[in-house]
């Protein structure tokens, strides 16, 4: 369901970006004003989303435990997969967020001669991790366009990223990884029947959009070079809320306009979609709570009294039988 809808939506965004890049009047609008709308929607949308999650309390401590609990002193606790302290929980969250710990466990179940067998399946983990980390590093590398002077970490990242020194300009590893990661995730949705069944337009679309951003970015870097001095002047102006001149905008290539419009679209789309998992993962109660339930009482802010069947009512009903059976009672008659 929804591959067609997503493709059409993506092509629509592409068309708008392209038209914006070649029609001078529109270009000013899309380059000088749209980014502010996008940034505002992104920041405000994400804040609203997180506040809305935060408004709901966590009534019970429902940690999913994935290892030995803390119990007797001579039994070795699995402090990261079943943490009982704040530090352990922090460790668990870091492993989850930075290295996708749970996805790393992934297995594949198959039938072999009427037997179920499980094999290690790290592809999803590998390509997801490759995609997410590459995206982050590419974003950080872009700081060379955002600020003047360029932060020192950018040079460091560029050196590592271009470690193999292949090609000219040097090919970044992250460029290769992000494209292969996204392609894998996209093809998996189409060719793995289980994943295809569960996929919605909102699953294909962001993949296509980010694929669009990465592809136009790669084209800009390696094939259709744009005026980088102009690009930098432009982004710095936008980010420092300064007016951008018509002359400057004219220097930006249509391909850059498309790249830029894709990014704006992503910013707007982000808080309205599943992409908010970026923030939500921090708040997941099965992961971010220590498994110290029996050690430390968890308070439910809306805990309320419920009707109960008291011992007195119980004894009232069964007293005769209890006395006859010689079971102690509170009232003898």
């Amino acid at each position: 369901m929804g591959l067609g809808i997503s493709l059409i939506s993506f092509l629509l965004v592409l068309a708008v970006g392209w038209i914006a890049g070649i029609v001078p009047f529109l270009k000013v609008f899309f380059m000088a004003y749209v980014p502010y709308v996008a940034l505002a929607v992104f920041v405000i949308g994400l804040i609203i989303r997180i506040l809305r999650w935060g408004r709901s309390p966590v009534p019970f401590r429902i940690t999913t435990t994935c290892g030995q609990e803390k119990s007797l002193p001579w039994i070795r606790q699995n402090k990261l997969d079943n943490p009982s302290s704040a530090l352990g929980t922090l460790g668990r969250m870091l492993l989850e967020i930075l290295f996708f710990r749970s996805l790393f466990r992934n297995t594949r179940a198959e039938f072999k001669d009427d037997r179920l067998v499980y094999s290690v399946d790290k592809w999803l983990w590998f390509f997801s991790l490759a995609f997410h980390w590459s995206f982050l590093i590419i974003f950080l590398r872009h700081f060379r366009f955002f600020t003047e002077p360029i932060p020192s970490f950018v040079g460091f990242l560029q050196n590592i990223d271009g470690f193999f020194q292949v090609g000219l300009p040097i090919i970044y590893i992250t460029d290769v990884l992000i494209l292969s990661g996204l392609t894998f995730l996209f093809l998996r949705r189409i060719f793995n029947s289980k994943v295809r069944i569960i996929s919605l337009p909102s699953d294909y679309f962001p993949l296509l959009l980010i694929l669009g951003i990465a592809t136009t970015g790669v084209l800009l870097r390696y094939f259709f070079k744009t005026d980088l001095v102009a690009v930098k002047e432009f982004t710095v102006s936008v980010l420092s809320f300064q007016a951008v001149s018509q002359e400057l905008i004219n220097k930006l290539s249509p391909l850059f306009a498309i790249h830029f419009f894709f990014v704006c679209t992503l910013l707007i789309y982000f808080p309205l979609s599943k992409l908010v998992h970026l923030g939500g993962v921090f708040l997941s109660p099965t992961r971010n709570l220590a498994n110290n339930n029996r050690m430390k009482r968890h308070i439910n802010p809306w805990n309320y009294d419920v009707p109960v069947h008291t011992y007195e009512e119980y004894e009232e009903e069964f007293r005769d039988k209890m006395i006859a059976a010689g079971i102690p009672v509170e009232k003898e008659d």
Partner: protein
Amino acid sequence: MSSKIKPEELIKTFNLKPKYRNWMDVPVDFRKGTFNYAGSEEALIYLDQPNPRKWQVTDPDWKLPENWQEIILEGLRERLEKYRSLKIFMDICVRCGACADKCHFFLGSGDPKNMPVLRAELLRSVYRREFTTAGKLMGRMVGARELTFDVLKEWFYYFYQCTQCRRCSVFCPYGIDTAEITFLTRELMNLIGVNIDWIMTPVKNSYRTGNHLGVQPHGMKDSLEMAAADIEEITGIHIDVPINKKGAEILFVTPSADYFATPHYYTLMGYMMLFHEIGLDYTFSTYASEGGNFGSFVSHELMKRLNNKIYAEAKRLGVKWILGGECGHMWRVIHQYMDTMNGPADFLEVPRSPITGTVFENAKSTKMVHICEFTADLIYHNKIKLDPSRNDHWHATFHDSCNPSRGMGLLEEPRYIIKNVMRKFTEMPDNTIREQTFCCGSGSGIGTDENFEMRMRGGFPRANAAKFVRDKYGVNICLCICAIDKANLPPLFEFWVPGLEVGGVHEMVGNALVMTGEKPREVDLRLNPLNNVEEKL
């Protein structure tokens, strides 16, 4: 019913590569053997639950309140405000599909709606339609749909095809817990009187008599005394059975199946022998005679109403702390809910083993200790004498019960005990034990005869792993620490792995326990002759 389907036929229907179809267009099919009967009118009236009436799942009219959609949507709105878990789980799933082949019901049925992600989408689609702008505007295009009677039927079918085992939650990169979604959706359905009888009647019984079988106090006493008599016959030792004893040091709460069903009963004998041998000052309670909490299968409120009895009884009897028997969902409730719901247990003391002096710091707030923690501590401190050779006719494997593993982390304690009370122990394959353990297929109240086919399907992954160690290593008993396991694994194994027995960890303790003044043992707790290895293997 079991005679109607055959394993070799069922296995042919397994398929992990479902054909692509838009799942919203596939109607639910209430096939005989794959669903549970509706909740009884009487139980709902006794418990003061909404919409009591006589109805059947296959009826065209479920006799719902006229505004049932409104009731459910209002209930959903309320729960979104009360449970951050629900809100987060509705919003952040990326449908990566890592959970898909982790669910025992999907593995055994091949039905895409049994993939945890799709099970959650059944609710999420309605959430999107009612609570998100995109869903309101674009409907099916963004995976949103209205709550219709067909959707309700789908909810009933598939949310009672989830055993709240949480295996999917282990693999989910965001820890999305289908048990939580199932739990809350069942709670929503309960608002309009849509529930199943094997949950509602046990809840009623537990509420009234203290235990889910509805056994009255004298019946419970008879049963415990029968166990004492059986113990005397086997060991020559007379055991007193303390019941509702005020001033005892410890209140012992175990699932009621332990004193009425086999093979649970042998585990009960094991507890009683152990307590007698170490001279424990404890008591059973007829009022709090059920550890298992059937309320936890249908609503937080019913869970609380039943769980209330344990602390109330501990207070009335004036015990110092509480010890709990072998049970699965019971321990999730005790570990993750009891203190929050019905605490603080400030009238109790931090549990301290009177035999070893060990203070159970890990239970210092809830004040309830798992029997495996307690016994492991005894063995570690050499406080009991064991003769593991008395279990030589058994070659065991251990089935981690879902909730103690994924809602608690009780993994090593039972293993430590097993390795000390018997000599032949083999683990099932890694992907099927510990936090990756597979459900028996009948947890959370769906272990009924009418649901037999679905249980055999859902239990297949567990049975498959057990079969592997039986065939390869000659394992002849599967031990477990859960009353539902003990009730369901026997028919499951009879179906898939004939000849494989099921037992509790403390049954093996009872066999191995050398009791002061006992006569030479000739039989184990099942009256199997000892030292006759050939016969058993």
